């Protein structure tokens, strides 16, 4: 991490109290130590330690043979990851921002994701593609997107999206050990970076040593009875904030952190909506043709009668992400919009 560093938290704390970024790195580190076939490649992942601190310390520990700075050639180095995976390695490859998918999507969706199928199961591509997502700090239309709807739409790759330190580590270890390509999307706003707005839940106790969070299992992060909010990533935290506020008003919100988009844990969603009868989806990606529709359809696939009110979708309203702060906050699914949507939904 090179951007003006500040001490994270000086209060006495358990030795395993980590930010999300450090938990993510710890997961990588454990696997690199355990399995010599794990390497990490990408732009500025060496001496810099990752623009969003996804690799801090790895170069020092594992050296330049296993932690590799690449040229700005995403097609070449993601492809390199694919070929290395095919030949038995377990590469973790970083696409610095998910927004850059457009220069290398062919390697991702036509190769990484399809080789296993095209080979009739004879070739495996056990690689992890890590990538930073999300806005909220005025980085403009090409550096703030979530785009998980796009990755999840295209078959053959798993997609995980941790929202907190525990999941960040456990999903990373699970992703590296998975025999399939796994896209690991981390929101800059959950990483606990010293140079971004502070998120209280971005630092937490994390077990030492290895453990996995199973890919494909959502988590009910707050049980509730009145309304189900299905969400992920940074929006989990905004939603939890709102749930606390609403609890004071007697509105009991159940919050589901999807954690994985592919496979999607439809059971957990159905169980919750079966109980609450009210569904709000909070999604920082573009609204149409994406995640929020898929969650609605998860219910209508089975029984639209479960829904006692319209499904509220709190997402980016199909707008490129504006630079100017008030505009950006207007299109992001933040506390104000989430709260309004929940109130509207439970009142019907």
């Amino acid at each position, binding site marked *: 991490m090179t951007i003006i560093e500040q001490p994270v938290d000086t209060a006495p704390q358990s030795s395993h109290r980590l930010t999300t970024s450090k938990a993510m790195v710890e997961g990588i580190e454990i696997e690199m130590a355990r399995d010599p076939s794990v390497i990490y490649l990408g732009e500025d992942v060496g001496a810099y330690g990752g623009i969003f601190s996804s690799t801090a310390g790895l170069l020092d520990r594992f050296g330049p043979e296993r932690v590799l700075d690449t*040229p700005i050639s995403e097609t070449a180095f993601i492809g390199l990851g694919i070929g290395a*995976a095919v030949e038995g390695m377990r590469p973790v490859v970083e696409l610095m921002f998910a927004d850059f998918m457009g220069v290398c999507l062919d390697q991702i969706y036509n190769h990484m994701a399809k080789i296993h199928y095209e*080979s*009739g199961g004879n*070739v495996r591509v056990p690689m992890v593609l890590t990538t930073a997502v999300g806005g909220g700090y005025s980085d403009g239309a090409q550096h703030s997107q979530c785009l998980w709807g796009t990755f999840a739409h295209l078959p053959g790759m798993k997609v995980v999206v941790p929202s907190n330190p525990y999941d960040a580590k456990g999903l990373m270890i699970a992703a590296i050990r998975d025999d*399939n390509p796994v896209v690991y999307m981390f929101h800059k706003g959950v990483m606990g970076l010293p140079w971004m707005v502070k998120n209280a839940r971005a630092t937490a106790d994390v077990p030492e040593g290895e453990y996995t969070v199973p890919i494909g299992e959502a988590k009910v992060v707050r049980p509730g009875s009145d309304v189900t909010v299905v969400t992920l990533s940074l929006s989990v935290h905004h939603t939890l904030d709102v749930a606390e506020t609403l609890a004071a008003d007697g509105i009991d919100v159940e919050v589901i952190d999807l954690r994985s988009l592919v496979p999607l844990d439809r059971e957990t969603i159905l169980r919750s909506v079966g109980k609450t009868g009210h569904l709000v989806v909070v999604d920082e990606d573009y609204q149409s043709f994406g995640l929020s529709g898929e969650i609605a359809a998860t219910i209508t696939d089975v029984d639209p009668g479960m829904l006692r009110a319209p499904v509220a979708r709190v997402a980016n309203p199909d707008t490129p992400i504006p630079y100017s702060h008030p505009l950006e906050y207007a299109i992001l699914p933040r506390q104000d919009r989430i709260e309004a949507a929940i109130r509207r939904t439970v009142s019907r």
Partner: protein
Amino acid sequence: MTTTTPGRPHPMQSELDGPTRVGLYRTMVLIRTFEEAIRRDYYADKGPGFDIGKGLVPGEMHLAAGQEPVAAGVCAHLTADDAVTATHRPHHFAIAHGMDLTAMAAEIFGRETGLGHGRGGHMHLFDPSTHFSCSGIIAEGYPPALGQAFAFRHQGTDRVVVAVTGEGAANQGAFHESLNLAALWKLPVVFVVEDNEWGISVPRSASTSVHSNATRGVSYGIPAERIRDNDVEAVHLAASQAVARARAGEGPTLLEVHTLRLWGHFEGDAQGYRGDLDDVPARDPIPTYRTTLSAAGLLDDATAQQISDEASARVEDAVTFAKESPLPDPADAGAYVFA
């Protein structure tokens, strides 16, 4: 190596020994025999009229007739431990690299016994036992080749990778990125550009700002060579140096071979755009090489016949196996999405 090729010695004064030369011929004949059989069965049942989705072998079919010298000359230096990544036009490299004809044919016929259990098809042949793969997206086979090379070196072996594209594909971004990264990391890759002068209907002069892609080696600081005249022995020679460099840890080489697309871009292509069609049959490299070898006293008619018969037998066995194999069960269409 230099970026332009000085005149090669006439094949009569070949540097190669007789068995090697006959071996190259044998590989070329096997490839052609396979392609002719596929072509025959491709058209066998497309009617009435021509429906591309019908028949024993449906879909687009890109055959490599005329380009056998490239595959034969290059793959002569490889073992099954080395990798090859090819293009939408992959059969010649697959065969030259030793792919099992039976599983290959079965895949092209869409059978459960095929390399990919019928999931891949002719543009998606994956063979772990020869480290062969290919892709239908132009130039996008290059990047994974880098990774195979990286793994081979990381694993402490001297295995190499051959990565193939056409001259049209060399104008795609992946070409540039791959050559730069391979050169920078000195990866054991031999990049092969098959210049058959056409990218579908677009001639090289309308796609490429320079006459030869060998010129482009200098952009990456790597040796590059253009092999003229679709000459299998010249390919063999250039490839032997390139493969040796890669094995020795000296990094990648770029080889461009001026070759010939004997047939259409894909089957069904009437090639109305092509002015050189009348000259094409005379440029077929297989009869030419046969003449050379027989003039050198290496290939009498009987041996040639025997080579041809052997190839036919192997190919027809493979095709028969394919045709007799079961089609995949539609209920299993969703298998193999995830491991």
